[in-house]
């Protein structure tokens, strides 16, 4: 079953919109505008009716799967349920219908919400000052590293290296390069943690920062965090915390108390704002006091009872967004934190960790668990055992789709062969966890008994296995 392209619904002259009649005198734009600036041929956009468009996009939505459809255990993506009330909050007209160039005095209500959100994010992470400007996690990483860059520039130190463990979140190396650093990757040890000897070897006067995801993408907490932070700080470097996995530690540990200097959050992960099919997200950055001067402009401040944007920041790293970042996402995160409450945040983490450990416990005999260390909110299995039977992890993932469940993150982290990174989140109930566990066991049996069933999966989806090699070889990127 396929859905035609929207343009195929079209018929010349068909309209799906209505506008009031033009009520001012009409001139010929060509007579006044500079030569060659009026468009000669209309853009070939579809000509469809409103009902055509509604049916088309409804049909597309039926070919999709979201958290509302069922479990979405993508590791390190924290696909938890997105409360509906938060959508209502973000659509309150006085909050949504404000313009970024409106003067501060007209938007005090919104600024108050953003300021409170900043305070909560500082409290949750144990940091001092916050910028809400970055529009995604990777954007936050970039801002954090640019702050570090600016800090050393100001001190007159030339430090060129950023160290990234091989179990770090996937965007870290590219963010390092974007911020102009040389990225040095270090290996994990047999416990799935940073290998202190490799780290010691990599640390020298050139190190600007270590980027750490804690717990890392294996879901394992870096137990040696105190030694690690000492090693970096003694060498004059800074410590960067990738907050992708914050859902594992709320109320149990704070990056600030672990002596991290900079962190970024992913509001769309930890604070449950919908992922939108790939965005919008939001990646606020929080820093310790000594790095606050380098935050992007403007910084939201309070003077008495008035909130205002502070642009007078001579040491700023610059700016990464035309306005103030993904404000609509921040409203949802604020609503989420308020409905959870301070104690509720801790329970969220407890249940995320409980769900993940329950699943790990139930699956570790069926699939190889390459690292036995305690894990928190996610865990990584390997399909190596099944690969001996000729079935790879991608086949297992595709077979899961046949059972109407989304697949874990696969082939990441790179340090585990045939990796399946599973993060159930706290919003899945026991029934849903058991169903996923049972399905994974069924697939394992199928691999032994009917391997071709798994090898040729998916069978029940709207399209069957898609040819990615063909797509890359002969790119067809538009109609």
């Amino acid at each position, binding site marked *: 079953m*396929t859905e035609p392209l*929207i343009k195929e619904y079209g018929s010349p002259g068909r309209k799906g919109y209505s*506008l*009031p009649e*033009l*009520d*001012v005198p009409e001139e010929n734009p060509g007579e006044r505008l500079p030569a*060659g*600036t009026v468009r000669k041929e*209309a*853009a*070939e*956009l579809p000509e469809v009716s409103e009902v055509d*468009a509604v049916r088309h996009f409804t049909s*597309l939505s039926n*070919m999709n799967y979201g*958290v509302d459809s069922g479990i979405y255990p993508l590791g390190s993506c924290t696909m938890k*349920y997105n409360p509906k009330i938060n959508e*209502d*909050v973000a659509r309150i007209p006085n909050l949504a219908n*404000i*313009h970024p160039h*409106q003067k501060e005095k007209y*938007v005090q*209500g*919104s600024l*108050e919400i953003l300021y409170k959100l900043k305070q909560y994010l500082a409290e949750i992470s144990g940091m001092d000052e916050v910028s809400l400007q970055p529009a995604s996690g*990777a*954007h936050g990483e970039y801002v954090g590293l640019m702050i570090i860059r600016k800090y050393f520039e100001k001190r007159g130190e030339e430090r060129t290296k950023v160290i990234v463990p091989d179990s770090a979140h996937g965007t870290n190396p*590219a963010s390092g*390069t*974007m911020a102009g650093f040389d*990225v040095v990757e270090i290996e994990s040890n047999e416990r799935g943690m940073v290998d202190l000897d490799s780290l010691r070897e990599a640390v020298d006067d050139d190190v600007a920062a270590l980027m750490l995801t804690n717990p890392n993408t294996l879901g394992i907490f870096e137990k040696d965090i105190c030694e690690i932070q000492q090693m970096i700080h003694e060498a004059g470097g800074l410590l960067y915390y990738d907050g992708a996995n914050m859902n594992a530690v709320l109320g149990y540990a704070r990056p600030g*108390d672990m002596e991290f200097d900079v962190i970024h959050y992913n509001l769309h992960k930890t604070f449950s704002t*919908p992922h*939108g099919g790939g965005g*919008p997200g939001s990646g606020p950055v929080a820093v310790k006091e000594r790095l606050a001067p380098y935050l992007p402009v403007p910084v939201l401040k309070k003077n008495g009872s008035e909130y205002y944007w502070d642009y007078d920041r001579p040491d700023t790293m610059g700016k990464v*967004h*035309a306005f*103030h970042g993904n404000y609509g996402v921040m409203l949802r995160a604020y*609503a989420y934190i*308020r*409905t*959870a*409450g*301070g*104690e509720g945040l*801790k329970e*969220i983490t407890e*249940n995320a960790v*409980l769900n993940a450990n329950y699943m790990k416990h139930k699956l570790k005999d069926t699939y190889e668990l390459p690292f036995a260390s305690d894990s928190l909110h996610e865990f990584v299995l390997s399909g190596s055992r099944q690969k001996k039977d000729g079935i790879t992890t991608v086949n297992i993932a595709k077979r899961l789709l046949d059972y109407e469940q989304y697949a874990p993150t696969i082939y990441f982290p790179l340090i585990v062969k045939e990796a399946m990174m599973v993060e159930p989140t*706290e*919003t899945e109930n*026991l029934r849903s966890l058991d169903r996923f566990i049972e399905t994974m066991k069924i697939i394992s049996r199928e691999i032994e008994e009917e391997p071709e069933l798994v090898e040729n999966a998916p069978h029940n*989806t*709207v*399209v069957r296995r*898609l040819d990615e090699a063909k*797509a890359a070889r002969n790119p067809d*990127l538009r109609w």
Partner: protein
Amino acid sequence: MKYISNTPPEQKKMLQEIGVEEISDLFQAIPENIRFDRPFDIPEALSELELMELVQEKAAKNLDLSKFDSYLGAGSYVHYIPSIIDHLILRSEFYTAYTPYQAELSQGTLQAMYEYQSMICELTGMGISNASLLDGASALGEAVIMARRHTRNSRVILPKTVHPAYRNVARTYGEPHGVEFLNVPLQGSQLNLDSLAEELDDDTAALVVQYPNFYGSLEEMEKIAELLENLKKTLLIVVANPIALGLLNPPGEFGADIVVGEGQPLGNGVNYGGPNLGYMAIKDDRRMLRQLPGRLVGKTEDVEGETGYVMTMQTREQHIRREKATSNICTNQALNALMAAIYLATMGKKGIQEVANQCYQKTRYLRARLAEIEGVEVVNQDNHFNEFWLKIDRPETSLEEVEQKMCEKDILPGVNLAEMTDQKGLLVCVTEKKTRQDLDNYVRSLEVVLND
């Protein structure tokens, strides 16, 4: 509410299965000395009713755009948004999904992105579009470092007619890569072509032109294209308002290599400036394609020959190419791109022309009427689209007073340029939503304010 489903007995059962006594036993890996040992200083949980009451109370402290007749633009625009957009994006299969890693269960998002890419190409006259970037300004930042990589040159000409925030973001992105930025001053409300000609040389990686520019004027694109004719390596980066392209010649027609911009005007609300939608389109060029940042969706077939869509050319991206990727971008603005796709489909071929034409005609009307007022000057000659630069030369009344008095008449008269540039005046934006009555009221009010 915490949205946790499992009850204490179920939790207990799960703990028994795992073989531990209490939930806190699962956290033993966190060393005692760094444990957080107090409750958060965050208020206690609220019910839905309490939350809504609290948020409404704060919202009431805002004066949103419905309280004013607003002429604010400068990068964020209030256009008509067809009702169907919000209804369709609230289909939760769209908005509660993530990046379509499992293509077979994400065909809706993927096909919509393919359609988005196609329509952006149609609108801009370019060959290839990616599936979105974070906003217009960061899209320019990405374009600048892409040009730096592609040409291996470091000079980028960034005229003062480009949006000041975009200039700031471009500089932030370019700085770690050794990009040297060169200014071109204003001549009236356009970039100074003579200065541009002096700055351009063989080692120039890129020239950035905003279309229409920050001050609302169209640059002399044909003359700029001529200046670039002999500079084979220099890339032309155009920052284009997508709505304007319903009326204006698409950048592809005058040789743009990269077109970026803010897609918010395409069916997205203002939302205090975010979430917005960065778009990027390039020439149909394989070498340049390999340098393109961001997700790309391609059409392919399944094992039975049925058409389907996948994310493609992923060897450019951070999760595969790691530190050698074309960008670090991962999460983009997919839902906003979906909104733009629904907008472009709904407005269609005729609608985008009509919106652009109404913007132009109504701007033209207001501009002409305002220019008749004594002491009021419109800097733009006959080269604006939907924004113009209004100068008010009345020694007895400051611009701030004019703004204040207009606000008292419930009109937001434009963006005060002094807030963002070293220029004086207001940047006035008119869209198709204005009526003749609104525009006449603006003129009358300004006359009253100035003659008060």
